[in-house]
């Protein structure tokens, strides 16, 4: 036993504490260092891109098609393509992913079949994106005959991010307390009424987060889009609704050929002239900005949705 009043014992205790605290310092430094590797690398990359690219940004850059002359080239077809492909992706992936997640959480019986499905959904998220590209080339482009179109690209990316949305939906649903769940059933609600009136409204913030994470991944994907045959040089826009050849419809554009931002960047970086590298940096800056804007929107909407939900 150490007698606390003994000065020697107090000195011994202080020595033990000092030695133990050296480890605190060591791990704090190690942590800061690890953090810096990530943060600094990204900052340097982003700054380098911004310094090169931002001076190149003007209105014309957004309203011009690609060109053989770097000074005239712009990203009009690329950003329109990216926006339209993302629209198709979201329209396809969100309903499918949310419905699958709700089914697995609320309706599916708990047995070995659903266990296998669950394990495989997590596995799907780890499949290389080029494999999705090959699948889509066979299925959407040739078998369904959608061609090398915005529709094919959007559906491919939808498949790619489906697991992310399913997993996010399930986690958002599981975050709803059991007592709320039981409260709804105790009122005499059916499963569908419980899903419609409680589960979906209360989990929408979490689902939205998953959707944005998925979309942020999809917006930068290049490999599967190249696989299904996106053009690298395209000097026209998809047909606007009701403007194509008769019978013109609202959705003519989904069958149009297209390109997207990462492909435009890739194309420019592979050119020998330095001026195209500057174009690529400018396009990269726009792409990163689009992703950050999406994340910012998600944070805001999530904040608005969560404000009225307290358990």
């Amino acid at each position, binding site marked *: 036993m150490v007698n606390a009043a003994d000065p020697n014992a107090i000195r011994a205790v202080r020595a033990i504490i000092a030695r133990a605290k050296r480890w605190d310092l060591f791990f704090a430094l190690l942590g800061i260092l690890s953090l810096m590797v990530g943060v600094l690398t990204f900052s340097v990359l982003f700054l380098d891109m911004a310094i090169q690219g931002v001076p190149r940004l003007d209105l014309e850059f957004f309203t011009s098609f690609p060109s053989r002359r770097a000074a005239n080239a712009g990203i009009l077809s690329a950003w329109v393509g990216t926006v339209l492909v993302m629209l198709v992706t979201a329209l396809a992936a969100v309903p499918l992913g949310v419905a699958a997640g709700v089914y697995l959480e609320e309706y599916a019986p708990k047995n070995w079949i659903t266990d296998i499905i669950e394990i495989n959904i997590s596995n799907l998220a780890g499949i290389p994106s080029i494999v999705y590209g090959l699948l889509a080339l066979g299925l959407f482009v040739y078998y369904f005959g959608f061609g090398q179109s915005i529709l094919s690209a959007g559906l491919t990316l939808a498949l790619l991010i489906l697991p992310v949305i399913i997993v996010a939906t399930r986690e958002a649903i599981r975050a709803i307390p059991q007592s709320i769940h039981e*409260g709804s059933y*105790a*009122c*005499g609600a059916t499963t569908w*009424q419980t899903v419609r009136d409680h589960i979906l409204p209360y989990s929408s913030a979490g689902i939205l987060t998953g959707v944005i994470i998925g979309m942020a991944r999809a917006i930068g994907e290049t490999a599967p889009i190249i696989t299904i045959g996106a053009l690298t040089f395209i000097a026209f826009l998809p047909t606007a609704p009701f403007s194509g050849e008769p019978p013109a419809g609202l959705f003519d554009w989904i069958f149009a050929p297209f390109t997207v931002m990462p492909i435009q960047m890739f194309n420019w970086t592979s050119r020998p002239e330095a001026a195209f590298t500057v174009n690529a940096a400018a396009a990269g800056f726009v792409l990163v900005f689009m992703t950050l804007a999406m994340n910012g929107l998600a944070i805001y909407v999530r904040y608005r949705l969560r404000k009225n939900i307290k358990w």
Partner: protein
Amino acid sequence: MQIPTGTQPGVEGAVLKADVRELDFYYGAFHALKRVSMPIHDHMVTSLIGPSGCGKSTLLRCFNRMHDLYPGNRYAGGGIVLYPDDTNLLAPEVDPIEVRMRISMVFQKPNPFPKSIYENVAYSLRVRGMRNKNELDDRVESALKGAALWSEVSNRLKELGANLSGGQQQRLCIARALASDPEIILFDEPTSALDPIATASIEELIIELKEKVTILIVTHNMQQAARISDFTAYMYLGEMVEFGVTDQLFIKPQKKATEDYITGRFG
């Protein structure tokens, strides 16, 4: 399912509302209720007491088929007959949603939905297909009055239910359970998360409510059972040890085990 005939004599000639008959219930392989029988009298408060894990909440949650929500739960014999129509609540052909439409529940921890005060109460009516605004308004008001909450919330019905105090939240949940005009309301330790003042107001409310509805309450608090209930059942290890008129059970228990429990020598 074969229903054994009622074995419990009516007490004090009161009318029976429901009858638990030789009920067996399993959580997976665990035998949680063992041939439990007890009567529930119309417009009376019946309380279930016993130490933790004795099966009192399990029995309560049989009444609105809450166990059906989870896999592995099994009603293994006997039943709960609801009068006057002699429906066995646990029969496989009886829809659990129909049962929950007739028998509502108030939980241990207040669980208002993250919706407005109005919508919380209106929810029980909306699931029953009520759409008429005036009718909804009237029913919500009378339910909130019935739960002694109207005077406190009448001018802020659009606020979130979660903004109320704990005791008010629990009365909101009582209003929600009351709005649909149920035949029985189940209370699962409704005051265990509340302070003594809120507890007193809920107890007072439960005594008033028996004018309108039959009440079955699980409580871990024996004084509470003694204060508010007309009949009390003592359960232990999944078995019904003793059922009787509350005053008699507390003053002159028939079984030694009951006496040990209520005098604090055990549990």
